[in-house]
Structures are given as structure tokens and as C-alpha cells.
């Protein structure tokens, strides 16, 4: 029983990270109908920058905030430089461009920082919390993950639901031409959407780094798990990203625990295939109309 509990708690902690990255994917998909396969690699890059800052003596929390801001800038610049020229052409082209970005970012990170395995410090202790006499598999750092991602998600929800800016962003994504006619600066809002996604991606990168081998490719699996979570939740919904990420995290934790590590990506693949066969629009989406 306690094994199950441990796997569950582990799954929740990891699932929250996948939710953060899934949130980034959802934000971009809502804004521009593109899946940004480079989001994980962007998070990796900003985390490497954080690692450099820490090595130069910057305090952890300053590096944290700075790197989130860099993530924002990265996301915004990516939209401007690489995605804007492709608006209106075939659907496959932006996908391939983001894959190209993924590869370039991994290559640049590898070239600058090299292959040497390095560690990344965690904000809080990673040993299990104690309840009474027993330790559970949920550490202070896992609590921090939970809180950080929830704060991000609530902030995004408040932005979208309760502010004029959020309303304008939703309008730009939903009906770009009409919004332009009504005076909404659609272009800038799309860039803003990508910037916010960049923040979420950087956060995910910072949260994953302490628990994994920290190299140029460490976000690859996180990205596909986040993708799975985003698809399960429905690519249009932040709440769906949260739920989908948690479901994926739990599923992977159980697969890894009961069937052995190394089979987790396969478990995620099966989960994704089942979800896409059963409910391709995701759990939290409106049914989409198709033009014939």
C-alpha cells in the first residue's frame, strides 16, 4: 500500500511539472493554433542560463526570477522571428520549424555547455516530509513544485477570465480578423501569448532540473509527456492542461513503478494512443466545427 502511495505522490509531483509545460503548449495553441515542439528545449536553455548565473554567484531566487523573464523574452522573440513569416501557409510548416528550433537549441546548449553532467540545486530540501513517524515520498521541493505551478495556473486563469487584456487575447485567438476590425492589436497579443508560454516553459525547466540528469536533452521526454497531458486535457484549456498533466504523471509513475523504469515512454505512448482513439478533442474542449 505504501508503495502505491509513494508512486501516487511521485506521480503528482511530476505531473505538476508536465502540467506547467502543458500549459505553455496550450497557451501557444490557443493563440496561434501551433504546437511548439521547441518549448521544452527553450526551458532547457533558460535553465542552463540559470545554471551559469548560479555559478557566477547570483542568488537562487534572483536567478529564478531573471530566468523566467528571459523565458518570456525568448518566447516572444520566437514568435516574431520564426512563426510570424509562416502565418497563413500550410499547417505542416510551423511544426517543422519548431522541430528545427528544438534541434538548434539542443545543439547550441550542447556546444556552449558541453556534455559534462552537471547538477542543478533544488530550491528546497528534497528529502521526504515526515508525518508522525513515517516519511512519505513528497519532499519540501515537491510542495514547492505544487505551489509554483498552481500559482502560475491561477495567475493565467485570472488573466484570461478577469482582465480586459485576457479578453482581448482570447478574442485574438478565437477570431483574429474580427478582433482586428474592432481595434485589437492582434499581433502584439499573439506575441504576448508566446511570451507567457515561455514563462511556463522556463518554470518547468527549473523544476525538472534538480531531479534529472541535467544535459541538453533532458527536456525531451518532459515535452512529450506534457504534450500527452495537453492532448488529454484538450489543447484549448488551461484547466485541461493541469488535469491532463496530472493524469500523465500518475500513469507514468505507476508504469515506471510496477512495470519497471525504461518502459515509461511506452506507457505514455499507449496512454496517448488510447486518449486519441477515445476522445481526440480532449476532456475539456468544446466540440470543434469542421468546414467542409
Amino acid at each position: 500500500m505504501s508503495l502505491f502511495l509513494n508512486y501516487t505522490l511521485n506521480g503528482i509531483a511530476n505531473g505538476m511539472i508536465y502540467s506547467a509545460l502543458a500549459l505553455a503548449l496550450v497557451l501557444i495553441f490557443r493563440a496561434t493554433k501551433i504546437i511548439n515542439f521547441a518549448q521544452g528545449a527553450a526551458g532547457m536553455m533558460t535553465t542552463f542560463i540559470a545554471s551559469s548565473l548560479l555559478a557566477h554567484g547570483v542568488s537562487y531566487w534572483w536567478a529564478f526570477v531573471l530566468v523566467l523573464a528571459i523565458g518570456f523574452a525568448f518566447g516572444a522573440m520566437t514568435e516574431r522571428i520564426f512563426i510570424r513569416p509562416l502565418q497563413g501557409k500550410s499547417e505542416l510548416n510551423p511544426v517543422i520549424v519548431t522541430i528545427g528550433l528544438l534541434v538548434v537549441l539542443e545543439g547550441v546548449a550542447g556546444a556552449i555547455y558541453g556534455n559534462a553532467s552537471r547538477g542543478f540545486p533544488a530550491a528546497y530540501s528534497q528529502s521526504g516530509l515526515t508525518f508522525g513517524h513515517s516519511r512519505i515520498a513528497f519532499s519540501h521541493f515537491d510542495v514547492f513544485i505544487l505551489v509554483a505551478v498552481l500559482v502560475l495556473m491561477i495567475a493565467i486563469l485570472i488573466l484570461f477570465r478577469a482582465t480586459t487584456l485576457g479578453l482581448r487575447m482570447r478574442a485574438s485567438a478565437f477570431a483574429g480578423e474580427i478582433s482586428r476590425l474592432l481595434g485589437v492589436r492582434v499581433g502584439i497579443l499573439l506575441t504576448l501569448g508566446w511570451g507567457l508560454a515561455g514563462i511556463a516553459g522556463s518554470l518547468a525547466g527549473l523544476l525538472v532540473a534538480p531531479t534529472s540528469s541535467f544535459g541538453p536533452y533532458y527536456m525531451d521526454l518532459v515535452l512529450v509527456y506534457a504534450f500527452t497531458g495537453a492532448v488529454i486535457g484538450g489543447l484549448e484549456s488551461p484547466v485541461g492542461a493541469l488535469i491532463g498533466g496530472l493524469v500523465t504523471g500518475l500513469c507514468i509513475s505507476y508504469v515506471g513503478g510496477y512495470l519497471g523504469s525504461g518502459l515509461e515512454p511506452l506507457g505514455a505512448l499507449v496512454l496517448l494512443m488510447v486518449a486519441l482513439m477515445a476522445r481526440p478533442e480532449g476532456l475539456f474542449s468544446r466540440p470543434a466545427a469542421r468546414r467542409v
Partner: protein
Amino acid sequence: MLRHLLIASFGAGIMYLVTSNISLFDNYQVGQIASFVVVLAGLSVLTGVNGQISLGHGAFMAVGAYTTALLMNHTQWNFVLELASAVGVAGVAGLLIGIPATRLKGPYLAGMTLLFALALPPIADKWPNTFGGDQGLTMTTPNAPGSLSPQEWLAWIQIGGALIVLVLLANLLRSRYGRTLRAVRDDEIAASLAGINVARTKVLAFVISAGCAGLAGAFLGLSTGVVNTGAFPLTLSIQLLAAMVLGGTGSLIGMVWGAILLVYLPQWSTSLSGHFNLGSGVSAYLATIIFGAVLIVAMIAAPHGVQGGLRWAWRRLPGSGSGVGGPAPGAPGAPIPVLTDE
């Protein structure tokens, strides 16, 4: 069909002259180029002609390579049969992926095939006794006839395979089935209204391209002599995509350009970084960076690749203007083609 056979024979003749007159190492590389042409041609058919993107073809190559390696190590089957099994088993894998893929479009399909590419190699690590673990399984080429050197013989096997695959695919694309593939790519609903079984077409395209990838994987396993999971990382699948895009998505002959890129880029980037004294750490990653840059630049500036550019130039030649104008057909982003080549 006849025209394709003639072109293939001509190509075979040229390749014979080339392989007899170049060094053994160059033979090895020419053979690798031919192997990559096989997988790229299959990928080009799947993505360019049928409109389904796949980021998982490295995994299909692994399936083919491991199948042949396992047969070589545990049975005494005929060599051609072993290669055919690579095609068959990889085709089955293509079936397993192709069936859920019928429900997916663009980015969703890319995501699922990406996950497939990441999920498959660890399976071989999970059972190291069967799959050889880190050391992998060895593959041996059958002995060369007469006085032919082993490298030339292997190159010939690979070139022969590539020519056969190209002829078969070219015939396929010219046939009714080729038109069906394009119809499904361009407008699924119209195609199904016209009586085409869309799902079956899409699955079959996946099976064919996976089979090609399996054969190519077996060929490359013969080149390196060993098959292990390290040979099929995610970056391989992405490099295949980049090579296909550069060569010209949807084209078959264009895949030669892509294959050349794949085989020679690591060398060029090493010498480039040596030229600029960039250090060994950088040179290992420079090839990766260039592949990614190729993808980005090609998509933004030249989505039809080298072959598309050549076609565009050919049409601009005075006196060769035919009735079919516009961008190269069969590439993503092109309008519905009226007539198609290749």
C-alpha cells in the same frame, strides 16, 4: 514502368562506374547514401504525397535493423529473406502506428510519432539478453562474389536495393494508388465522397514507408556491422525529416540530395569547426545545429527543397515552358496539382 526501369538501369550503370573508380571508404559512404535514399523515399511518399508527418522513422529503422540482426544471429535464413523480414516486421510496426494515426492531423501526428521514436529504443535496453544491450547485435554481410571487395559488394547491395525501391515507389506514385494518396492529402472529405477509403489509404502509406525505413535500417546495420539502441536516437528521426525537407518533400529523386546531406554533413561540420578552431565540444554539436537550421531556413525560405528549386529553374529555361506551372506539386503548401511528375 518501362521508363522507370530504363532510368534505373542508366543510374545503375553510372553507379557501377562510380563505385569501381573511387576509394573503398568512398564506396562505404556511397552505400550509406543509398541506404538513406531508401528511408527518405518512403518518408517522402508518406509526408509529401500522403500528407502525414512522421517524426518516428528512426524507430522503424531500428525495428528493421534489429529484425535482420536477430535473424542473422539465430537462424541460417537466406540473406534476401532476412532483408525481406526487415521490411515485413517494420511494415507491421507501421501498421500499429498507422492505425491510430488515421485519426490525427499535423501536429498531433507529429507528437505521437515523436513519442514513438522515444519509446521504442528503451525496449531493447529493457531486455539486454535478447537485444544485445549496449554492445548490440552484430551483422555480417554475405561474402562477396569473385574478386569484388567487401566494401564494393556492400555498396552494391545497398545501391541495388535503393534502385529497386525507387522504381517500385515511382511506379506506385504514377498509378491509381498514387493519385489516391494525393487525393487523401489534399482533401480527405472530397476523397471519401469520391469513394476512396481514406483510413485504409493512410494506413497503407504508413506501412509502405515503414517498410522502406526497415530495409534502410537493415542496410545501415550492415554498414556499421553492429545494431544497438544508441544508433537510433530521436535526433536520427529529426535528421531524416530535415534531409527530406531539404531534398524536396514529395520528390523521390530529390531524396538523393537529402541523403548526401545526411552522410556528409557530420564530416563537413567537423572540418568547418576545425577550420575555425571551434574546439571538439562544439564540433560534435555543430552538425546538429546545422540540421536544425536547415529545417528552419528551408521551411521559411524554400519549402520545396532542392528538387523543387531545380524544377523551378527547369521551368524557367527558355523553350521548356510546359502547361503545368506553379510551385512543385506534392509539397506541403502547394496548391492542388493538376498533373504531377515523379
